[in-house]
Structure formats: structure tokens, C-alpha cells
């Protein structure tokens, strides 16, 4: 780890002011579970850390319009186990509990979860070229070992994936990210928050360097009756997703009246597919319908060699997750605890 100075402001204005002084080399720190990990590897080398933990942003509260506001500093554990999240947004509860470990979830914050960086092994390895870490040096994963890499939305400059589970559920639910900067505030719809790599793979998202996430707001509709978060990985717990699927349905008898579908582990951002959702809405909740939606999602998917299997895996996972959401069988509840291998 490089040396750095440290400040612990008590309010948002002061935090934003501190950050603005040397905006590029100063970093906010929340749970520290991603930033400190990367600093130990010298991938991140901030010269000053602004500790956010004293800011009054750890509340989870209902807003007048029925939406639920998750403070940026609420921990992943407190969020997953919050009674309102458990009863109204069980999809989010499942996604969070499918990620990391109890210890990490006790530290990791909701804001930090959005901003965690890719787990691409070359990104972590200073000895190899990486356009995300050092723009212009090349991408070692293309033509290299790329089992965990993207099959959708990648570019010739970067094929990394966003590793979060929580964000896949937030994408499906259509959350909004609330942000403060020195001269005001703005709201970013979840789908516009993370970026595809294009020719700027060093940018993971559309937050500008001086901005602070203050909360993540969940719309009132939580799809609490029919949902599934299915996470497939190399071991059944404490591992990042190879593929994950957040599926949520609204049913009128056998007919689908509303649908949400988002995938993790497949792209540079949590991958919500509204065209596939449109293929579900108005249709009967049958395997045929689910297969058509799955085919739509992987239309144009491209393997990179070691990750070719993910295209078929994604299709099957989508069908299974949608089935689980429609039937709400016992299986849904064991997803978090006992993911069987694909």
C-alpha cells in the first residue's frame, strides 16, 4: 500500500469539499472491502482518503411515494435483513445474501457495492497490460484466459464484467441512484449508472470524480410475490457469479402482466434486457415463453474462448430462474443456501 493522508468529515458538505481539493487523487472510503484490497495490490494509489463513515447516510427509510430509500452507507447486511427489504423486496434480499460472506456484508456498504471494480485477474496483476488499469496498454484477457469475462456488450478494448450481485437485483427493480456534488444534486436511473467499456474502459460508471452517492431508491413496486435470484458459480458459496439472473414476474393467473429480467456476470454492467421483458409480458408463464425470452437475451452474445460455455449457461439459467419465479417453489428459497452446480 502507498502512503496517504486521512480525513473523517462529519457532514456531506465537508466531505465534498475535501474531495474537490484534489479530486483525481483523493478517494472516498466506505466499507473499504474493495478499495483497501485494490490498494494492497497497488492497483489503486490514492494520496488522500476521505472516510465517509461519520456521514448521516446509513438510514433505510420509506419515502412518501412508497419507495424505499437505502442510505449509501447502510451495510449490505443491514439492507438485506431490513424488515421492509425482506417483505417488499425479497429479490434484493436474496441477491445481497448470495454475495461475499457475512463478515464482508457487515462491512460493505450499498454505495460501495455499486462502485466495486471488476475481478478481472489481469486488472489486479500489475505485470500484465490492462486498458482499464492503464489506458492504451492493451487487454490481456482478449486471447488470454477469460473464463469469468463478458459475453454481452464487450468491446475490443475490454471484456471485463461487473461483479456485483446486489446491482443485478437493483437493475431488475429499476432503482435510482441519488448523487451529491459540490454545486447540487442529481438522480441517475440505474440503467444509466454503469457503462459499457467502448473505448473508455477505464470508466466503470457515469459518476464524475467529485460526486458522492447519497442513497439508492427502490420504486414502490417490489415484485414480492414472484421472483428469483439464481447465482451459478464454481463453488456453492463465497464466490463471484459466473452467471446470475434476477427474475421478477407479476402474474394474473397464468398470464404474465409485468416482468423484469437482469443478468450478472455477463457484461461490464448489470445487464437488464427490456426487449426480453417485453416478450414475456402478456404471455402465458410457460417454458416456451421463457425460452423465447432467454434466446432474446443471448442474441448477439459472443464468447471469448474460455467463457463460451456461458452463452448456453445463461440461456438455461434464465429459463430456470423465470420458472422458479413463476412457481415460487421451495427451490427459490434454497437458491441462496444451496446452489447446485449447473
Amino acid at each position, binding site marked *: *500500500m*502507498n*502512503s*496517504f*493522508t*486521512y480525513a*473523517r468529515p462529519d457532514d456531506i458538505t465537508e466531505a465534498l469539499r475535501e474531495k474537490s481539493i484534489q479530486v483525481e487523487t483523493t478517494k472516498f*472510503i466506505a*466499507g*473499504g*472491502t474493495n478499495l*483497501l*484490497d485494490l*490498494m*494492497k495490490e497497488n492497483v489503486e494509489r490514492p494520496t488522500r*482518503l476521505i*472516510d465517509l*463513515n461519520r456521514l448521516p447516510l446509513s438510514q433505510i427509510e420509506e419515502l412518501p411515494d412508497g419507495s424505499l430509500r437505502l442510505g449509501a452507507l447502510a451495510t449490505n*447486511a443491514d439492507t438485506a*435483513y431490513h424488515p421492509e427489504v425482506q417483505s417488499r423486496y425479497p429479490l434484493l434480499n436474496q441477491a445481497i445474501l448470495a454475495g*461475499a*460472506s*457475512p*463478515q*464482508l456484508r*457487515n*462491512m460493505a456498504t450499498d454505495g460501495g457495492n455499486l462502485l466495486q471494480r471488476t475481478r478481472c485477474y489481469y486488472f489486479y496483476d500489475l505485470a500484465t497490460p490492462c486498458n482499464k488499469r492503464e489506458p492504451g496498454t492493451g487487454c490481456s484477457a482478449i486471447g488470454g484466459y477469460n473464463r469469468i469475462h463478458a459475453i454481452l456488450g464487450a468491446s475490443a478494448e475490454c471484456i471485463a464484467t461487473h461483479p456485483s450481485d446486489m446491482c443485478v437485483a437493483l437493475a431488475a427493480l429499476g432503482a435510482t441512484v441519488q448523487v451529491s456534488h459540490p454545486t447540487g444534486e442529481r438522480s441517475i436511473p440505474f440503467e444509466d449508472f454503469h457503462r459499457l467499456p467502448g473505448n473508455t474502459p477505464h470508466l466503470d460508471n457515469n459518476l464524475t470524480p467529485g460526486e458522492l452517492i447519497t442513497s439508492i431508491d427502490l420504486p414502490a413496486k417490489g415484485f414480492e410475490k414472484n421472483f428469483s435470484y439464481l447465482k451459478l458459480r464454481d463453488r456453492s*458459496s*463465497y464466490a463471484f457469479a459466473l452467471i446470475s439472473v434476477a427474475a421478477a414476474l407479476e402474474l394474473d393467473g397464468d398470464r404474465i402482466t409485468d416482468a423484469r429480467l437482469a443478468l450478472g456476470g455477463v457484461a461490464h454492467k448489470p445487464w437488464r434486457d427490456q426487449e426480453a421483458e417485453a416478450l414475456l409480458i402478456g404471455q402465458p408463464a410457460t417454458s416456451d415463453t421463457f425460452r423465447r425470452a432467454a434466446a432474446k437475451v443471448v442474441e448477439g452474445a459472443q464468447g471469448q474462448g474460455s467463457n463460451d460455455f456461458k452463452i448456453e449457461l445463461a440461456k438455461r439459467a434464465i429459463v430456470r430462474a423465470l420458472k422458479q419465479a413463476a412457481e415460487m417453489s421451495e427451490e427459490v428459497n*434454497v437458491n*441462496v*443456501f*444451496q446452489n447446485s452446480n449447473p
Partner: protein
Amino acid sequence: MSTVIQKPLDHQPPSLPPTQSVRLTINSQESHFTVAPWTTLLDALREHLDLTGTKKGCDHGQCGACTVLIDGKRINSCLTLAVMRDGADITTIEGLGTPENLSPLQQAFIDHDAFQCGYCTPGQICSAQGLLNEGKAKTEAEVRELMSGNLCRCGAYPNILSAIMEVMDKDGLIMDTKEWSAGGAKPEMDPINS
């Protein structure tokens, strides 16, 4: 364009950022010390406070050997800075029991032979204590899942699980006794939390 400034570098030692003072309550004792800002809580415990019960396995949040309790909640002490925990109440393995008066989990780990080399054990026990404090695990499958943040290279998992299950059983915390299989003996108590 830029002016080249010839600096006699050898004569200017790099200035280190000042150390920061930290106050922690560790195992019910107040402790004051100063550290460089980049000192992790794990390194502060081991190197500055001589509390070497907490182990460093991976130093990257991947093994759980460094697990301690902060205000009763388990965390990985390798991924937090000591300065970030100023004012916190910390319990390490040294604070859970004494050799003469072991905590129920410590005693159960011995009774169930729940370790071989012992390197992961302090983290396992602190994590299990955190699990009991949280009260989310009610079945064996849930204990396994919610202990997955602690790896054991010796593979003592079955005995670790049976040690934890025994303590939970004594506390009446197990919901589904049918699932209880790891330790051989079946718990006698009926679930009280159904």
C-alpha cells in the same frame, strides 16, 4: 514548456504523513495508540497491541482468519483501517474466554476436535460468535452457508460445524433437528423457535 527543477533529492528525506491517534476498547480495555493511516486493524492488533490471537491468512478478505467482532458484529480486520475504527468496541479471540474459563464455543471446539493446525480457529470461533449474535441461522444448512466466510485448509469443517451446532442446540436455537447430522449424536432438545 515545463521548468526542470534540480532537487538535491538525497538531502530531502521523503516526509511521511503524520501518524494518527486511535482510541479503541479492546476486550473491555481502553487502549490508546498512534498509527500510520494505512495500518489495518489486523496489523494494529497484532503488531501494535500484541494481540496475536487474530491471524493473518490472505490479507484480502478471502479466508476469514482475521475475523473479530466490532460492537458484536463479525468483520474481516484485514480490510479495515485502524483509524476508521476510532472509538469502536472490539472483541478478539483473547476476549471471548480465558484458559481457565473458556467460552461455550471455545469449549465446544475442543470437545469436537474442531481443528488440526489451529490457524483458522480464532477466526472460526469469532465468526461463530458473530453468527450466534446475529441469530439468522436456524438449520444446519444455514450454519454452513453463514460460516462460509471462514476457510479451513485442514478441512476440519465437519467438526467445526458440529461444535457450533452443539452450542446452538444447548441454547435452543436449532429449528430443524432432522437436518442435524454432522456431529453424529443427535441433539436431544426439541426446537423452541418453531
